[in-house]
């Protein structure tokens, strides 16, 4: 069975500093997609960044970047220059079947950015 594990229930960081959120997953598949979603108090899930497993280069979106270690099945999210608006719940998600788009989510990490 495919699973996603986020081992950090809560994290905090000072404004302008860098923080890394961890995610590991389990699959026997070779081709899949990985995602990080942000869920603010409004509850709307917002896509932060995505990584396709066949791409070796780590994805980057402005202040957000990932460290994708395929052999270790690890997919961490680094947030640089943290801003107060980054305060939210962050979910790592995994998709093995691109024909359906079914996402499997981790348990989430609550991130608080402190002024």
């Amino acid at each position, binding site marked *: 069975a495919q699973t996603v594990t986020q081992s950090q229930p809560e994290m905090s960081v000072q404004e302008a500093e860098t923080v890394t959120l961890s995610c590991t997953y389990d699959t026997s598949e070779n081709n899949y997609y990985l995602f990080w979603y942000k869920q603010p108090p409004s509850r*709307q*899930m917002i896509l932060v960044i995505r990584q396709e497993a066949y791409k070796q280069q780590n994805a980057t979106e402005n202040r957000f970047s990932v460290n994708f270690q395929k052999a270790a099945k690890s997919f961490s999210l680094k947030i640089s220059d943290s801003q107060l608006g980054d305060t939210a719940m962050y979910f790592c998600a995994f998709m093995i079947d*691109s*024909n*359906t*788009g*079914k996402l499997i989510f981790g348990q989430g990490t609550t991130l608080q950015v402190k002024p």
Partner: protein
Amino acid sequence: EAGVAQSPRYKIIEKRQSVAFWCNPISGHATLYWYQQILGQGPKLLIQFQNNGVVDDSQLPKDRFSAERLKGVDSTLKIQPAKLEDSAVYLCASSLESRWGSNTEAFFGQGTRLTVV
């Protein structure tokens, strides 16, 4: 463009009552998903529609949950009768198509928070 609309935002019902949630996906999006998010957990897919046909309902508790997407646009998710463990946020999402490519994205609504007392 307008996002995924869901209503109501909040609902409180007693156990054994019935409840229905409504979702209006982004215009033109063929694929619609319903996820259940229990407090402290990540969302779990309940059912997926491609136009008005069901693609995956393997995790939908069919003895009490039902969903439909008439005309391949709006969708409703119903629970009858509700149990205490159904308390959760119900998220609707849509994507342009079911087959994902490099730029495919699922857009989520703000969800309905259901409390069963």
